[in-house]
């Protein structure tokens, strides 16, 4: 019955049209547009531009030490974030879950930083790093606190991690908490009766039951960490020099300051997209397989 099929299509399109139109205008077309520009030498100012094939990609990967450095710096950041953010969030979640009376209190406290915008967090911490800590160091002679926290590249990486974790751990913690609540108490008790200690119980009973949450949190952290921008922007601005410049900031700089090389910056953002895609797919495949095994 062709009329029925036609009607189904029509109603499908009618229902999806509002979402689809706005999505196409502001997400789909720009995505394709970015890929298109990445093959040109357009500078954002001139009215004309030429196609230069893979030239931008070759230049970014072989002849742009700043971009490559920002890539490595971002990778380092992603690695540290995945490990630390999830470890801390999981430990906090397990610990909080074990409290009875103070559960709600700690949950509220640890999640609060997450509500505050990243850029505002970065500003608050700038105050702490540049003003408060040096003063505490002076007064208490805890001299290790008196560092050039955001000026010295050795420490600014640590500062960036601290602020990111402060801001992000709460979110992961909530997800872990929800997962932990799904672990039946009876199973844990059974393990303890069998003579397992707390750690063993956690490893053999709890862990397998929250692997799904771990996959999700790894995914979220991975995705978020590759796109990090605001913490670095608010804290160090990528400096001193470009020592804390992350990929997104390198792209931003290329497109909106510097030489305004739109085409070239677009190529860099395509590279970022591909990297995130690969990492995410690998992570999901590997962890899903683990989930099934467990």
């Amino acid at each position, binding site marked *: 019955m062709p009329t029925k099929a036609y009607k189904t299509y029509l109603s499908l399109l009618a229902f999806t049209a*509002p979402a689809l139109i706005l999505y196409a205008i502001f997400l789909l077309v720009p995505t394709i547009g970015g890929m298109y520009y990445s093959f040109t*030498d357009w500078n*954002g*100012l001139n009215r004309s531009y030429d196609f230069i094939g893979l030239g931008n990609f070759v230049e970014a990967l072989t002849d742009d030490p700043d971009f490559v450095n920002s890539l490595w710096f971002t990778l380092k950041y992603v690695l540290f974030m995945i490990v630390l953010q999830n470890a801390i969030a999981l430990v906090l979640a397990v610990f909080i879950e074990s409290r009875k009376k103070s559960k709600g209190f700690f949950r509220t406290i640890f999640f609060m930083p997450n509500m505050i915008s990243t850029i505002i967090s970065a500003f608050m911490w700038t105050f702490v790093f540049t003003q408060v800590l040096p003063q505490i160091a002076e007064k208490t002679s805890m001299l290790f606190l008196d560092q050039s926290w955001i000026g010295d*590249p050795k420490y600014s990486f640590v500062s960036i991690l601290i602020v990111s974790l402060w801001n992000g751990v709460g979110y992961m913690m909530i997800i872990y908490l929800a997962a932990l609540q799904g672990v039946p108490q009876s199973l844990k008790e059974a393990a303890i009766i069998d003579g397992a200690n707390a750690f063993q119980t956690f490893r053999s009973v709890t862990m397998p039951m929250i692997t799904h949450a771990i996959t999700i949190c790894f995914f979220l952290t991975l995705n978020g960490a590759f796109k990090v921008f605001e913490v670095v922007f608010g804290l160090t601005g990528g*400096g*001193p*020099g470009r020592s804390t410049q992350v990929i997104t900031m390198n792209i931003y700089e290329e497109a909106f*300051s510097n030489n*305004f090389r739109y085409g070239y910056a677009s190529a860099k953002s395509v590279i970022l997209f591909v990297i995130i895609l690969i990492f995410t797919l690998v992570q999901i495949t590997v962890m899903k397989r683990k989930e099934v095994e467990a």
Partner: protein
Amino acid sequence: MKMWTGVLTTVMAASLLAGCASNNTGNGNAANTGNAGGDSGSGEAKSVTLKMFVAQPRLKEHYDKYIAQFTAKEKAEKNIDVTVQIEMPPADNAAQILKTRLASNDAPDIFALHAINDIPSYYKAGYLEDLSDQPFVGKLLDSVKPAVTTTDGKVVALPLETLSWGYLYNKKMFADLSLTPPTTLTEMKAVVDKLNANNITPFLLSYKESWIPQLFLPLAAGALINTEDAEKDFITRMSNDEGSFSEMKSMFDVIDLVNANGTDKALEVGGDDGAAAFAAGKAAMWLQGPWYAETILKSNPDLDFGVAALPINDNANATMINLSASTSLAVSKTSKNKEVALDFLNYVLDDTDSNAFFQALKFNPIATVHTFDSYPWVNDATEYVKAGKSYQDPAIPQAVKDEVGKDLQSYYAGQMSQDEVFKALDKAWKSFNKVNK
């Protein structure tokens, strides 16, 4: 289906409205929103909407006042009702906003740009109206005219803000130790030693914002280009992918001297912090232009400071003041209201009203019509200029200036060697050439 149609229409209407909201006069935008523009009909009394773009929000009231005077004058003399829409984004992203406007055929009639950094590329891209035959050009002082003149001899902007600078020094500290601004690098070393011996930190370092360490480059390059025969055509050669910054290696002599004798935690001190610290007497000298005078005096109104030229080698003739123009007004080539736009530009250098305007803005005199007294620090610099010890700010592309700021931060942090700095600068200039070929 009724309900649905209603909702859809509402959404569509809302999106169209949103589109119109920022569309205003529809200046030069092609037919993508047919009914949206508001181009005034031709038969009625003449009224013009002039769009301006000036990235100096802190000076808004002065601009507003002057614009009000202008509209009154225009009405009285030409019977044109002028409505001025002035946009003043913060300076940080002004260039980006302006650039997107221009590229999408949405140029403001009058816009402010940086004379040295922006004029060459904007002119090349065809966005600037030739103003050479405008009356105001005849009034410009000879010392500022070159900054707004293109390589082919056309005046394309009106300079508002001009600068004559080197570094700032604390006059009282210098006087107490009976020091005078040194004329050679060796003399500078002696000054530094004497300050150190008296427990005064010689230099204030404020490298948090990369444009501050960046200042070394125009000073060093400007001096070398104007005194060394081999470097005369440096800019031209660099623009043809021929030269290299390694020719300027000697600029690190002064940079190393300053870095080694400066205040702590330089990479955490920004411009404002620096101004406060300099005002508080934390150091005797600050590599900074007099554009921070107002901020310094705000935190210490009694501070007596002066402007001096930075020695970069032992050639006393190379110790010169940098003359430059920054904020300048240009008229869009595609403006539909050129007549009024040009009237405004000429009014900026009006014989009677201009004095008060420039004084309110605290800008330096730039034209023969300006008769007001300049500030003491401007007079310091003028002494050098009168003695012939000044040069026009070399036309180093903005991208290279941005690069050098970041590189010198890294150099200070010990993360880049001198050679790496030169390499990065050469690359930045080359990619500038590539983009602006």
